[in-house]
C-alpha cells in the first residue's frame, strides 16, 4: 500500500479521469484521503448498484488537487494503448492458451483420479492406478501442448484465403486443444486494467501539470472562475484534513467528512460561492438550513475571494427557538 513518492497515473479519456489499478485506488484512499466514486460493475455481483467496482472515477476537483500537489500525473489513455506487434499478440495468445491448457489438464487429472478412486477398492490398486494415471496425464499434457502448436499450422494455411476477420464462427475452435477435451470447459479471465499489457505505454503522453494537459487538449477543468473557486475550496477543506465527497444528493457541491466516508458520517454540506460580491437569496438560506437540519448536517457556505486567494466559511443551522 505504500506508494513511496510514486506518482499515481490517472487515465484520462473524454475529459474524465479514471483509476484502474487496485493498488492505486488503495493508495489514493489511505495516503491521500481521496475517495473518488467507483463506477464499474463488480464482476461477481453484477446485478446490483450498491457495491460497484473499478474504474474509480475522480471528480474534477480531486484531479486538479492531486496533480497540483504532485501526487499524480495525467495519462492520455487512448494514445497510451498502442497497436501491438504480431509478436506481442502471439505472446499474449500463447499465455492465454497455456493457462487454458493447464486448467484442462488439471481438470482431466482430477476427473480420472476420481474415477479411479471409485473403481478400485484396494489401496494398492488405487496407488498403482494413480501412478499410471499421472503418467498418462503427463503424456497427455505433452501431447496436448505439441498438438496445440501443430494443429494450428495446417488450419492457418487452410483459412489463409479468407481475408476478413469475420470468418464463420463455427470454424474457430472453442478451446485451444480441440482434440480430446471438446466437452470440458475452462475459465477465461477477461483483462480489466491495461497496465499488464506489453503494448500499453504511457511514455510521451503523460502530463505533469494541469496546464500541460490543457495545452494537449485532454483536460479542460477548471475553465472559469466558478470552477477555479470550487477547486480552491476543495483543496482548502482537504488540507484541513477532511475527506471530501460529491454533494449533489444534498443540494450542495461537496460533502465534508471528518474521516473516511466508509466509517464516518459527513458533518457539512458545502456550497461554493465564487465571489464575495455574489448574492445569496434568503430562500437559499432557508432551503439549505431546512435540508441540512433534516439530514443531521450543517450547511456550509464557502466564499472564495479570488483577489485575496482565500476562503471564508459560514455555516447555517436551525437555531431551534420554539
Amino acid at each position, binding site marked *: 500500500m505504500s506508494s513511496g513518492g510514486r506518482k499515481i497515473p490517472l487515465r484520462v479519456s473524454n475529459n474524465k479521469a479514471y483509476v484502474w489499478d487496485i493498488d492505486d485506488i488503495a493508495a489514493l484512499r489511505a495516503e491521500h484521503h481521496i475517495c473518488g*466514486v467507483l463506477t464499474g*460493475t463488480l464482476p461477481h*455481483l453484477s*446485478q446490483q448498484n450498491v457495491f460497484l467496482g473499478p474504474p474509480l*472515477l475522480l471528480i474534477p476537483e480531486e484531479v486538479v488537487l492531486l496533480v497540483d500537489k504532485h501526487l499524480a500525473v495525467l495519462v492520455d489513455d487512448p494514445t497510451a494503448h498502442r497497436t501491438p506487434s504480431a509478436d506481442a499478440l502471439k505472446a499474449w*495468445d500463447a499465455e492465454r492458451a497455456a493457462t487454458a491448457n493447464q486448467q484442462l489438464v488439471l481438470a482431466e487429472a482430477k476427473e480420472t483420479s476420481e474415477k479411479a478412486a471409485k473403481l478400485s477398492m484396494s489401496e494398492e490398486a488405487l496407488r498403482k492406478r494413480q501412478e499410471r494415471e499421472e503418467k498418462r496425464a503427463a503424456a497427455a499434457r505433452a501431447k496436448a501442448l505439441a498438438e496445440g502448436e501443430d494443429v494450428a499450422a495446417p488450419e492457418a494455411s487452410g483459412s489463409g484465403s479468407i481475408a476478413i476477420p469475420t470468418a464463420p464462427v463455427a470454424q474457430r475452435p472453442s478451446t485451444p486443444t480441440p482434440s480430446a477435451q471438446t466437452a470440458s470447459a475452462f475459465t477465461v479471465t477477461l483483462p480489466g486494467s491495461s497496465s499488464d499489457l506489453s503494448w500499453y505505454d504511457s511514455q510521451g503522453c503523460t502530463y505533469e501539470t494541469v496546464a500541460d494537459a490543457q495545452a494537449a487538449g485532454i483536460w479542460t477543468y477548471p475553465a472559469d472562475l466558478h470552477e477555479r473557486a470550487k477547486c480552491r475550496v476543495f483543496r482548502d477543506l482537504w488540507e484541513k484534513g477532511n475527506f471530501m465527497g460529491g454533494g449533489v444528493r444534498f443540494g450542495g457541491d461537496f460533502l465534508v467528512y471528518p474521516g473516511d466516508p466508509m466509517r464516518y*458520517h459527513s458533518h457539512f454540506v458545502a456550497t461554493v460561492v465564487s465571489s464575495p460580491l455574489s448574492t445569496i437569496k434568503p430562500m437559499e438560506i432557508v432551503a439549505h438550513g431546512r435540508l441540512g437540519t433534516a439530514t443531521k448536517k450543517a450547511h456550509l457556505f464557502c466564499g472564495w475571494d479570488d483577489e485575496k486567494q482565500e476562503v471564508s466559511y459560514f455555516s447555517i443551522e436551525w437555531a431551534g427557538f420554539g
Partner: protein
Amino acid sequence: MDDTLERPNVVSKPVDAVDGDDEQSSGDEDQGPDWTKLPSAPTARPFIPKRGEKDFEPNASGGSGLQRHVLDRSRHAMLEALSAPRTISSKSISYAVWHPDLARAHVTLSRGIHFASMGHSVARTASLDSAKKIHKRLELLPEETLYLVERGAMLCWKACELAPSDTPGLEDVEGIPMTVQQAFAEMIGTADLTLEKYQVFAYLKRLGYAVTRTKPPNPEYPIPPPFEQPQRRYQSSFLHKVLSVVLWPLRALQSLFVPRFDWWQPIRTSCLHGAFNIRAVHHGLCRCTVLCVGLGHLFQSLRFLPGGHNAPLHVQARPRAPVSPYQIFYNVYKPSTPFKKTAPPPPEYSVVVVNARTTPMPTLTELTSLFGVLPELPPPLPRKRQSFVQQKAGTAPPPAPAPKTQLPPSRMQRFFPWAFPSTSPPELPRNINPFLSLKTGKKMVVVAAVDAGMTSFFRFGEGVFTEWPMVL
C-alpha cells in the same frame, strides 16, 4: 458466471430492502455500503448485505484503536472485492469485434440471455476478395458492448488493419484484445454516448431493465411504433396568426359599438341548467352528483383565459438557442415486460440524461417540447388494499383505458364557448382520487442527472389542474 445467477430476480429483494431503509432514515442517506459484509468469494447465491453502521467522527489523534481497526478491515474488504478477476466459463463467453470507424461491435459469437434485449442485425457489405456480398450480422451499440465487456460476459477485439487471423499461430485472435480500460477509453465518446449516458444505461441494466435508444442511431435499429398523438387544440399556425392580425381592427370596432361582453350571461344559462336538474332529482342520492356537475360547468364558464397545456405557450424559445440537452435518450422497459428486441413495445419510461454539473434546470419551453412527444397516460388507478395472498398471485395489470380522442371544437364553439355548455362533460370515474391524479400528471418523463458517477432520477409530470376543478 452462470446464467442462473445473472437473472435479476435473484437479488431484487435485498436491493428493495436497502432502498426501503434509505427512505425511512433520511438522515443517513450518505451511508456507504459496508464492504466487510460482502462475501469475499463468488458464492452459490449472491446476496447484498445491509448497509453498515457508521461512527459520528474519529476520536482525536486520528481515531481510537478500535476505529482504526474497523476502518482497516473495511478498506481491506473493499480492495479484496475490487480485485476479484473477471472470470467466465469458456462455454458461456461471447466474442465481438469492435470497429472504431463504425462505432459498432460485430458479435461473432453470442451466448447468454443478454442478447435477448441487446444488439440488432445490420446488413453490411463485406468485400470478399472481389465479389461484394451483403450479409446480415449482429451488431452492438457502444454502450451495449461496454456493458457486456465490463461485466465480464464478452471478450471484445479491436479491428485492425493487419488481420491477426492470417498470421500463423493466431487463428482464434480476431483483432487486438481490448481490456475493460481500453473499452472505456475508446467506446465512450462514439455514437452520442457520453460517460453520463453510459452510467445511466449500466445502472438500469444492472437492475434488470431493458434499455434501448429512443432515436435510432442507424436506420436498421428497431424502434417502437410511434404514439398516437392527440391533436393540440390551439395550433398557432401561420394562417391563424395572419387571420388574427387581419381581424384585429374589426374586433376593435366591434368592441366600440357592442356593449362589453356580459360575463354573467353564460353562467346564468348553465346555472339554470344545473338548478333545473337539481329540482328534478331533488329526492334521492343523486342530488350531490348533479350539483357537482352543475358547479363544474359554472367554473368552466367562469374561465375566460385559456388554461391548461393545450393552450400554446406565450414564451417562445430563443431562435438561435443551442440544442437543448433535454432530449429523450433511452426507452426503458421493466424487467417483467415481455420484450421482443426486433419489435419493441411502446416504452414504459422515457429517460433524459443530463450532466448535473453543466446543465441548468429545464426551461418551460424545454419541458413543453419534451411533453410534446410523449403520450398521455391513463389516470392512475386508486390503490387497492390487497391481501398478501392476492399480491403474491400476481394481479394482471388492468387494461389501460384508451385515450379519449376529443374532436377539435368547431369555430363556433371556439369563439362562443358559453353557447355550448355541455359538449363534453368531464365524465371521470367517480372513485379516482383527484390528488393522486394531480400528483401523477398526464404525461411523465424521467430525468437522470449524473454528477461524477452519482445518478439521481427525477420524475417530471405534466400537471392537470385544469381538468380537476376543486369543487367536489
